[in-house]
């Protein structure tokens, strides 16, 4: 009988299966095989390479390798003027370009001390929440595709098309919008657009319960995601995991409530938090359910923002945009916003010239990914797919 050598697995999240493997009760070990879950892989949501070392099906170590989509955002941001950086922030997390624009513009407005009118703030919140719904639709669609359900993918992408039609009418772009500028917006609301927004909200109301019936309460789905890839709250804090992932772990932390910006404090919505109904707190199912509930909350915000805009006198949305960016205040500022994937922060250094001296983008997917080597040991290979899908990474802002 081969002598059971103790597996030097770093202590992953404790779980009934996991204890067994650690206690070395596993009778016979195969040799470790090194598998590349490489850059071209249907379930890595882009170009992420995870080098997995497995013993049979059980993952021993998993090291993510990123950088395959490193598009030098910070170098580009040092060589273009302030307003020209906005289209590049679109391409950071290309599923939620409106929220990236909002993050960048608010950071620069804080540095320059620009105040925007209340109407512009309301339009920004409306557009950002619409984009949150679109982003969560893509995230849930790709996730259900990874788990193996083809119908929710088509349904969710179809509902997302409605949001993209709204954006197309608002600012001409579908995916990358360049809409929220520093100090204002690129276009005002076309008339008749708010009516469409109200129609969209009515259209979208029954969709989430429908998705729940179709997928969320499906026994196979719950069995597949319950108790899998648990990221407890303290690991989230230590590794800087933010957004739906930390809310899935039960921490009620959302920048729109804790550090309100752009008028978010005036809307009433609540923060969905993981309930641990399918296993433990912070497992893949919790993170999934948090995103589904967030779509419902975003609909509430959109409804309130749209009704406010209905009876708000129209004003020039480009009033507060500075005429020239040649002379700008010097200084350094860090500003963070609640982007659908997590906490998007911009550290901006300005030396008074028309181009930023240094821009550091604290991207949510970058930090959400670095938790993988700690969480992955002990998972089966199929659960690794569930882990990557549930932390919802996009390599555009992972690699910047």
């Amino acid at each position, binding site marked *: 009988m081969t002598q059971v050598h103790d597996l030097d697995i770093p202590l992953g999240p404790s779980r009934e299966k996991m204890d067994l493997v650690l206690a070395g009760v596993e009778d016979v070990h195969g040799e470790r095989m090194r598998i590349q879950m490489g850059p071209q892989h249907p379930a890595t949501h882009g170009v992420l390479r995870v080098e997995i070392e497995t013993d049979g099906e059980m993952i021993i170590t998993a090291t993510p390798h990123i950088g395959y989509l490193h598009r030098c955002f910070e170098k580009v941001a040092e060589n273009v003027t302030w307003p020209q950086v906005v*289209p590049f922030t679109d391409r950071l997390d290309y599923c939620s370009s409106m929220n990236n624009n909002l993050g960048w513009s608010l950071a620069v407005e804080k540095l320059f001390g620009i105040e925007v009118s209340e109407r512009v703030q309301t339009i920004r919140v409306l557009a950002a929440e619409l984009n949150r719904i679109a982003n969560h639709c893509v995230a849930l669609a790709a996730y259900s595709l990874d788990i193996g359900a083809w119908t929710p*993918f088509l349904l969710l992408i179809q509902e997302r098309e409605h949001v993209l039609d709204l954006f197309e009418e608002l600012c001409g772009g579908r995916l990358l919008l360049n809409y929220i500028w520093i100090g204002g917006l690129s276009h005002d609301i076309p008339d008749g657009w708010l009516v469409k927004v109200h129609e969209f909200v009515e259209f979208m109301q029954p969709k989430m319960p429908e998705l729940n019936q179709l997928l969320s309460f499906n026994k196979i789905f719950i069995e597949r995601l319950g108790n899998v890839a648990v990221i407890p709250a303290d690991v989230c804090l230590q590794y800087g995991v933010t957004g739906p992932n930390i809310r899935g772990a039960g921490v009620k932390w959302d920048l729109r409530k804790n550090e309100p910006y752009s008028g978010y404090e005036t809307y009433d919505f609540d923060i969905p938090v993981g309930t641990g109904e399918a296993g433990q707190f912070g497992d893949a199912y919790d993170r999934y359910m948090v995103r589904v509930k967030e779509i419902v909350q975003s609909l509430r915000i959109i409804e309130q923002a749209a009704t406010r805009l209905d009876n708000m006198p129209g004003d020039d949305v480009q009033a507060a945009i500075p005429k020239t960016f040649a002379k700008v205040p010097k200084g350094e500022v860090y500003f963070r916003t609640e982007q659908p994937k997590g906490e998007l922060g911009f550290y901006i250094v300005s030396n008074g010239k028309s181009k930023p001296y240094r821009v550091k983008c604290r991207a949510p997917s970058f930090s959400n990914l670095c938790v993988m080597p700690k969480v992955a040991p002990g998972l089966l290979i199929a659960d690794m797919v569930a882990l990557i899908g549930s932390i919802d990474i996009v390599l555009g802002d992972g690699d910047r």
Partner: protein
Amino acid sequence: MGNIEGRFGPNILVTSADKLFNWARSRSLWPLTFGLACCAIEMMATNASRFDLDRFGIFPRPTPRQADVLLVSGTLTAKMAERVLRLYEQMAEPKYVISMGSCANSGGPYWEHGYHVVKGIDQIMPVDVYIPGCPPRPEALIDGYLRLRELIMRETIARKDA
């Protein structure tokens, strides 16, 4: 192709065989799901039900062994270029390349300051169809596929010099 390629002059048999093979190939282009960046999301939206690439016989395949078209959608970076070249080599003949989006065409917005970005994938592999746009609209992607169809319809297995 195979043993009968470039063997015969352009006679009646060869031209009708051409028509049959080209028709069969162009009506079932299986792309390699190869989302690099933002264009990948537009590619997903085009594969979904509203723009529905399935009606053209286009069904994404995850492995290069079963793919006919390498649809490079997104920004090709230096670190990724080696892998893309290997995938391109590993695809079975006859294979085609569609460069989707201005990043793949010429480096796109990262043309000037992107030190890590390959300025256009035609620097490292032959490209059949370029689709402009950043990201190109789904209709533009469909137009790219149809243009590739016409390209395939003009192929022939007759001897080149004849």
